């Protein structure tokens, strides 16, 4: 903890590859450093402040939900012709953020990108909490959330069943599967670390709680053999899952015939956008986190730079998507498609379209500059632009497409109400509230996977 590396200086040589774990660490120091965040007695004051602020914001959401349930969804701004607005924007935004977590934990594991190891736990938690926030929106948008179980096929006295040809039904299955599998993956990864906490907790209460949660894990080689296979298989099945989830989310729009929705570029473009938004959120969270908890040894500059590069690459894919939308609208020679695009360029919401282009296409290009890529503050600022940009993208796609479609007599303007905002910012508070609890009670970095990164983990063969 006393040693601080001068990264800038370390990185001047061309041949120095930035490390994923700083030298000098052993199994013991890795374990102690990460578990001490959870097990130390004194809770940092800043944590209490953060928890209190996020809890207040979360209460804004709870208040809005109570008012909404008592009144109806008329408290939101969406109404004919814009039937989908903040609720679906926020749903897609949150789900997209969650996808980077699965990408980091599953796809990068399969690609043997060892740098993922120190951020995967954190990113998976982000996935889980983001999906929790996302799920609230369609649930509440049903208007009667207490009847949401009607969405699932079950034998009932009404004799009715859901319509499986509807992409909205596919979405129910995709999102609920995604939430379940993410939770399983996350918990499976936590079991060995919970055992570490059980063995290291000094309070009786901690020993009992972590002991129960660790299910009696004892690190047996037989258990590890099965565990490793299952972990890899979960990564293998999560990879197509994460791609399918956002593909299906994009079907919610692409299957419809509204100009601006009915386009085959949507699935890949939504998936790229999701990963883009997710990496931006990873950077937003990780840059302050590693500073505050002194985790620079484990979450190194290399992690930040790699995340920035992934963000830049997916950002370019998204930019290609925007280009494609404009090109196809023009090339289709379809009046409605062309009007939809012109309406984005110069219509009443044009300001937001150009703001979106600035945030998502122009701003991230600064990552090409080495100085920017190596500056945490710059990366944080760029990530914030992307967070905003990806929200605006869904705003442009959803209400701006809906407000002027085929028939000018049914055009209208969309204006969000105060409750749209209290709900949205409330879920951000809820997300951070869960995040702060996670930081305090569970290991934020996968301890057992970090042990495999330590040099002594190399088996020295004597006979061979």
């Amino acid at each position, binding site marked *: 903890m006393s040693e601080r590396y001068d990264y800038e200086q370390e990185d001047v040589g061309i041949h120095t590859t930035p490390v994923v774990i700083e030298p000098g660490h*052993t*199994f*013991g120091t890795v*374990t102690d450093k990460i578990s001490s965040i959870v097990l130390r007695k004194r809770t940092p004051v800043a944590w209490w402040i953060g928890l209190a602020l996020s809890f207040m914001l979360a209460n804004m959401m709870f208040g809005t939900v109570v008012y909404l349930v008592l009144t109806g969804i008329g408290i939101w701004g969406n109404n004919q012709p814009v039937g989908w607005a903040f609720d679906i924007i926020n749903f897609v935004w949150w789900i997209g953020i969650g996808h980077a977590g699965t990408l980091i934990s599953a796809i990068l594991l399969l690609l043997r990108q060892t740098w993922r190891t120190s951020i995967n736990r954190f990113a998976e938690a982000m996935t889980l909490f983001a999906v929790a926030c996302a799920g609230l929106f369609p649930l509440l948008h049903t208007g009667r959330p207490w009847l949401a179980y009607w969405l699932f096929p079950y034998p009932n006295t009404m*004799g009715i*069943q*859901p*319509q*499986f*040809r509807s992409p909205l039904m*596919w979405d129910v*299955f995709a999102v609920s*599967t995604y939430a*379940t*599998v993410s939770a*399983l*993956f996350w*918990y*499976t990864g936590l079991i*060995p670390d919970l055992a*570490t906490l*059980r*063995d*290291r907790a000094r309070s009786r209460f901690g020993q009992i709680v972590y002991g*129960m949660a660790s*299910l*009696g*894990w*004892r*690190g*047996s*080689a*037989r*258990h*590890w*053999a*099965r*565990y*490793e*296979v*299952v972990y890899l*298989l*979960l990564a293998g*099945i*999560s990879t*197509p*899952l994460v791609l*399918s989830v956002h593909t*299906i989310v994009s*079907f919610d729009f692409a299957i419809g015939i509204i100009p601006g929705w009915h386009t085959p570029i949507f699935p890949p473009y939504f998936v790229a956008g999701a990963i883009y938004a997710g990496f931006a959120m990873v950077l937003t969270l990780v840059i302050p986190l590693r500073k505050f908890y002194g985790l620079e040894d484990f979450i190194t500059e290399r992690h930040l730079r790699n995340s920035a590069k992934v963000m830049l690459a997916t950002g370019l894919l998204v930019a290609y998507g925007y280009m494609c939308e404009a090109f196809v609208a023009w090339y289709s020679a379809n009046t409605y498609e062309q009007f939809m695009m012109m309406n984005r360029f110069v219509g009443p919401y044009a300001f937001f379209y150009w703001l979106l282009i600035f945030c998502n296409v122009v701003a991230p290009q600064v990552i090409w500059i080495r100085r920017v890529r190596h500056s945490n503050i710059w990366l944080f600022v760029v990530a914030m632009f992307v967070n905003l940009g990806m929200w605006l993208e869904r705003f442009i796609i959803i209400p701006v497409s809906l407000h002027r479609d085929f028939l000018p007599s049914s055009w209208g303007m969309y204006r969000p109400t105060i409750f749209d905002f209290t709900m949205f910012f409330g879920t951000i508070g809820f997300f951070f509230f869960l995040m702060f609890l996670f930081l305090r009670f569970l290991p934020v970095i996968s301890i*057992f*996977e970090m*042990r*495999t990164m330590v040099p*002594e*983990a190399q*088996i*020295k*063969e*004597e006979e061979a």
Partner: protein
Amino acid sequence: MAGKRKVRPAVYGLMAEFDNPSDAVAAARRVHEEGYRRVDAFSPYPVEELSEAIHAHTTKMPLIVLIGGILGGMGGFLLQFYIATIYYPINVGGKPLYSWPAFIPVTFECTVLGAALFAVFGMLALNGLPEPYHPVFNAPNFALASRDRFFVLVESADPKFDRERTAEFLRTLGPREVTDVEH
């Protein structure tokens, strides 16, 4: 009943403690070569060589996950087929009731769900977890098995087990310590 009770050996087994993975792997190999079969090893992170050394490396997990995926996928598809064509047929724009391409997304999701549930719960079941109490927790220093120590255990149930001779043999493998594991 009392007469039928099996006589339990005095100890559950003998535990050798190592402070690095290489020694533990070498020791586990020697233990297996010596003919011990009721053997286990413990490490703070997955050590592939250690599982191989005690011949516990191949598992049934891939098959279980495959079965889970197939059951999930078939279940999902048949559910949709049954609901859309038999139980609750709705004519949508004259399209066929059995419109299988529309059933693919949900079938896929159910496949993944089935595979994931079988993977995690299958792993826990085969590992016999949750199991809050296990004799190995009685071994001194075993709390470090989740930090930086490596252990090799020979159970007393092994036919070759002999408290003195096995302990003597384990001591030749260069452990920090060899200790009895109480029940």
